[in-house]
């Protein structure tokens, strides 16, 4: 499919995907990822960009045993809803972890990793994953 081979699509999002660039709403106080023009909770345009902390904890997790095609070779892997230290929440893969190690509340830290490749001869898509924090 076209979208899985698009370089501009990846390029355009690179800063937010590489740097945990989030937003904070000056009206309702919500901190969110990624940054955007309007607060997802209250709709306010009074938002600022903020670099989110690289540490947090796992709220909920699941093990993906039947992955979308592009992630098939990584099965099984853990997907987690993570709350960062300032309250922002992010969905990300866990890495450097065995399936039996993960638990709700586990402290984690952000790492820069490869998410997928646009085929063997295509570009590599990098982003933030999380690993257990000692």
């Amino acid at each position: 499919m076209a979208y899985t081979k698009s370089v501009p699509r990846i390029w355009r999002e690179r800063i937010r995907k590489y740097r945990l660039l989030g937003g904070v709403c000056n009206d309702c106080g919500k901190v969110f990822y990624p940054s955007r023009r309007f607060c997802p909770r209250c709709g306010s345009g009074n938002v600022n960009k903020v670099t989110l902390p690289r540490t947090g904890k796992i709220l909920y997790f699941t093990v993906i045993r039947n992955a979308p095609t592009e992630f098939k070779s990584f099965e099984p892997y853990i997907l987690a809803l993570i709350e960062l230290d300032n309250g922002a929440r992010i969905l990300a893969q866990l890495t450097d972890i065995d399936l039996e190690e993960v638990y709700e509340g586990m402290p984690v830290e952000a790492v820069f990793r490869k998410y997928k490749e646009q085929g063997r001869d295509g570009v590599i898509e990098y982003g933030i994953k999380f690993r257990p924090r000692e």
Partner: protein
Amino acid sequence: MEKVFIVGIGATKVREHWNLSLRDLMVKSAIKAINNAGINKQDIKAIYIGNMSSGYLQGQEHLGALLATWLGIAGVSACKVEAACGSGGAAFHQAFLAVASGLYDCVMALGVEKMTDAITSDVTSALIMADDQEYVAFTGASFVALNALIYRAYIKEYGVKQEDIALFAVHDHKYAVNNPYAQYRREIKIEDVMNSPLIADPIHLLECAPIGDGSAAIILCNERFLEKKVSDQEGVIEVLSSVLATDIISLHDRDTYITLNATRVASSKAYKMARIEPKDVNVVEVHDAFTILGVISLEDLGFAERGSGWEIVREGEIEIGGKIPTNTMGGLKARGHPVGATGIYQIFDIVTQLRGEAGKNQVDNAEIGLAQNVGGVGGTVIINILKRVR
């Protein structure tokens, strides 16, 4: 606003239709609905087609003109409506608006999905498009996985045993046995569910609606058309309300995961518009793409207190003869879930009940029915409330 009536329904069985293409399925259900209404195909002035993934899974878009061509009524107003798994409900909503506005006398809402031509991992890729491609699909999330997170949140919040939630699948299968349109017409036991393989922990295979092909169609019209063109005035159903609401598309941006806010918003509006309360509903179709969604939906629709949706399942309240008969034709789990068509199948099933045509699954004196169709992880919810008026 004009009153809107349902005068015809048609559907294919949900299954792996190796011999039928996307267009074959559409034409088949359309003709069945037209015949069921006893009208001419030329009477239809507009068609709204609910479909999620024809582009990705079939390489086919532009379903409006495609169906108009293959149905032999090119010239008619027709287009696709997409809201992920809520596409069917959204298409019905558009059809409702078209008649209610007074613009068209008679329209068709049709849902279709042709999934089984693709390998499972490609279907998984297609379904996750229901969420944010850049910040959710990018992480390798599957649609099952997102619902698994909801499942975990619910279990943690209310301290419920998984068996009590998984029971929803057993419920659905029991009623699919008597539904000739259902994909899985066999009963299953809770042990079968709990022993089936994990897809995304804690969700087991038998807690997930299956992949299948199908198409269903509904003919809607106004009162004028009903009086003039419809010969059979028995079993006429009125659409009391049709409401679509959205929510923040991705879980991580929401403040809560154990309730689908769009269900609450859409249903409270729909009850108001229909001038009824939850207790007035005789039969309901909830969008149980996963067992947990069935449980949460019972709560969000006002049929159970928060955190007790699973109890009313366990206590038999959602059985035929119970307080709120639910998914009496098999639901998404057993009737089947050809995603973009599901919202239309739900209307088909409710109409079948309200007309008294549900056979062994008939709910006595069913007069008012409600269908809840969900797109994504609750990013879109459509509530349609129907009533038998003749």
